[in-house]
């Protein structure tokens, strides 16, 4: 299975994608837990891309590829004024948010816990591509 979604950089566009990812992965793997993980990763990556990446009427592209034993989720944004570089974000992955802070648990805790690999790359035209790999 190889499916991609391209959505406007608007947080209201994300929930239908999250639900679609969950439905597709559960159909493909028959594993509700893995499907929930994939949906949550898709949600967190898309919302990060919208908040820190593709602002100003940009787009976010999410791709799901399933192979035997793996699900690869890739989220690509177009960049914006607040975009951090891949090196900076990779560093943040190894840090923990403070106990009572509201932000900072998506990538550093949840996406990391549900995946076997997270890769962050700078795009040539600006923005970031984050690839997350789930083993199942």
């Amino acid at each position: 299975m190889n499916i991609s979604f391209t959505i406007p950089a608007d947080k209201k566009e994300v929930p239908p994608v999250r639900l679609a990812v969950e439905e597709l992965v559960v159909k493909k793997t028959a594993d509700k837990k893995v499907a929930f993980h994939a949906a949550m990763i898709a949600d967190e990556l898309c919302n990060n891309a919208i908040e820190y990446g593709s602002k100003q009427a940009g787009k976010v592209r999410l791709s799901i590829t399933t192979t035997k034993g793996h699900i690869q989720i890739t989220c690509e944004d177009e960049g914006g004024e607040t975009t951090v570089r891949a090196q900076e974000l990779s560093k943040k992955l190894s840090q923990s948010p403070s106990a009572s802070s509201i932000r900072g648990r998506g990538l550093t805790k949840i996406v990391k816990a549900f995946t076997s690999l997270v890769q962050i790359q700078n795009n040539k035209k600006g923005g970031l591509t984050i690839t997350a790999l789930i083993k199942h």
Partner: protein
Amino acid sequence: MSKVTVAISALSGVDKGHTITISGQLDETNVDNESKKIYELLEKEGEGAKLLFNFKDLKYMNSKSVGYLADWHGKLAKAKGNMVIVNAADNIMEVLSVVGLDSIIEVVDSMDKAKKALK
């Protein structure tokens, strides 16, 4: 926008106690708005507020929603209050566990246990 309902009611037998029942999908499209209700309640009750979060029909909770729970817990701890989570589904429990929140907020599986934890 995802569908979510946040209902607040007095918790009988618990001084300054309130039940907060959250149903549906709590995500980036609605959590900032819905969280205002909890902050207003915390402001209104002040010291010693006790909140019972009933997640029986909560289907989804994103990382920011978890962050709000951590913030409310911090505010309640400072104000000599308390909070407890009850009836969380397995996937919600997993998220709470992954971020380590289940070790700082009491999570129980029945309303009786939740009320006892707040007394």
